[in-house]
């Protein structure tokens, strides 16, 4: 039996999430023993032909050429896992979805006519079926290793979908909102980082995106967060900005930002 073939693809992104794979220093040797690197330009310019057993896709669909490329990648991949906020929610570049592109293209670029930008930056799942979405900006390397390991073993990855609050409590971090009055998006944010920021006395700024919404009414109660964030000193404009970062166009955070703006009016 040959080793499963891995491919790592980049769309509109900063490369930080695929770098996480190279950050797995202690595991890289055994990883390369268990997997055959078929396509991973950040690591090697050698490539192997498709199909691929596992494709990790970083970045959002933001340029015209991306549309066809992601469909081709899907066709060539047994499993397709998206990694990071760009791929799962459109990324920070999805802020452009809030205003018409031509308005600032001409300010930023000398020759906008060379550009092949789509109006919106969208997640990979808006274009092709995705087998698993790994959240984060950037992703967490232990979680990446868990996802790869799980796909190798054909099992479900142990990636909890509860709030960041769970992670604070599990590691024994005192709640920064309750004990310090620090604004924190932890209660509505998807776990995965290990509650990094609160462990250093900072509020969560939501880089793993919203907790999942489920049929039957599960999802982040961002409306109940509004008075809490206000109590802790944020204006409605601050609140809208807080939600509009790396997961600005995750539907629940986009809606939360709109709720805050509505309240301001």
């Amino acid at each position, binding site marked *: 039996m040959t080793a499963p073939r891995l491919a790592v693809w980049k769309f509109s992104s900063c490369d930080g999430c695929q770098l996480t794979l190279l950050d797995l220093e202690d*595991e890289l040797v*055994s*990883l390369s*023993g*268990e997997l055959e690197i078929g396509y991973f330009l950040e690591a090697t310019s050698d490539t192997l032909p498709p199909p691929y057993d596992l494709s990790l896709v970083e970045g959002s669909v933001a340029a015209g050429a991306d549309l066809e490329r992601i469909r081709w990648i899907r066709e060539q991949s047994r499993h397709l896992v998206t990694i990071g906020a760009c791929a799962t929610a459109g990324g920070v570049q999805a802020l452009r979805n809030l205003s018409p592109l031509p308005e600032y293209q001409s300010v930023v670029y000398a020759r906008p006519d060379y550009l092949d930008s789509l109006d919106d930056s969208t997640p990979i799942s808006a274009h092709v079926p995705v087998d698993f979405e790994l959240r984060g900006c950037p992703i967490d390397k232990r979680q990446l*290793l*868990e996802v*790869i*390991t*799980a796909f*190798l*073993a054909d*099992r479900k990855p*142990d990636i*909890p*979908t*509860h*709030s960041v*609050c*769970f992670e604070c*409590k*599990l*590691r*024994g*971090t*005192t*709640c920064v*909102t*309750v*004990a*310090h*009055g620090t604004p*924190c998006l*932890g*209660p*509505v944010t998807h776990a995965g980082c290990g509650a990094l920021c609160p462990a250093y*006395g900072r509020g969560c700024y939501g880089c793993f995106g919203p*907790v*999942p919404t*489920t*049929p*039957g*009414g*599960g999802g*982040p*109660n961002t*409306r*109940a*967060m509004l*008075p*809490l964030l206000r109590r802790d000193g944020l204006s409605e404009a601050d609140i809208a900005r807080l939600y509009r970062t790396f997961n600005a166009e995750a539907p629940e955070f986009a809606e939360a930002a709109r709720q805050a703006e509505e309240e301001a009016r």
Partner: protein
Amino acid sequence: MNAPAPLAEIDESGLAALFDALVRRGRTVVGPTVKDDAIVLAELGSAAELPHGWGVETEPGGYRLRPRTDRAAFAHSAGPQSWKTFLHPPRARLWQADRASDGTVTVREDDAPAPRYAFLGVRPCDLRAIAVQDRVLTAGAYRDPVYGRRRDGVFLIVVECTEPGGVCFCTSMGTGPGLPEGSAFDLALTETAGPGGLSYLIRAGSPEGSELLAELPARPTDGVRARAAVAGAAGRMGREVDASDLRALMAGTMTAERWNQVADRCLTCGNCTMVCPTCFCTTTEETTDLTGDHAERWRRWDSCFDLDFSHLHGVGPVRSSARSRYRQWLTHKLGTWYDQFGSSGCVGCGRCIAWCPVGIDITEEVTALRAESGAAGAR
């Protein structure tokens, strides 16, 4: 007729002597200490690490340290953790398995002995919480080995409560502020601060406690000041609730309108269950390493507020809405807990009120549910 046993007290140096005696006996002492602007429970190196001179102010969704005018070490109400962090740890590996090259699988259970803990500063409400978890985790047909190993032989030093917080309601639940008759403990202290410094009424509740007490520089006392401090605390509870027949009340609330009002505010973040000293739910996860030759089973705290908690294969979460998740928590805590374990699951410590970011107040919810139930009954 026997004369009543003489009461004894120790001073601050006696408290230090108690600490040292515990360490000499090979005990790992866990107690309150100041960290990150809160009074947390942690392994302590000496009695000097106790939160001398610190109190706390609590309200729904709020907790602040405040300096005291005296040096009291135990004049504070519940903090962000409870003793379950040590007895029922957030994460525990249950076993690991290895597959050899010839295919043989070897399973090793994680059964290393736990530290020999001494818990210093257990409040009566929290002592009841430990008793509740004892019932849940060790008294059924299947004794929980992780909890059991840690719980066996813990030396419990209760400190009666003299300074209830704004979210406390132990008197309503019958768990404090004094030590209820029939409690199981090793030593019990009652702290008072006076012009002569701190003093601690001390009494033993077990042979090991008596043995240790005999080593301490204790002097006789009438105990009047300590008794008055505890009696005074009973009159200063931040909250109270009518806890009569909660089981029947909860059973009748399945379709209550009040749950919708809670759901509007509830973040379903799970904080209430994590800070609750009796919530015990866990989930287990198996993981493998890259080679697939090494597997481990871990368990970690779970919560009825986690969507995965009620996930059914092919169906999804059975309890998806905030309404159904909060209702599950409260009706179990106050209602079906009686059916399962013969007592309330709530001890009145108030943690779920203080550490709920949006300040949902269990006493207010019970009162509202009772009012709604009464109104429905009157129709």
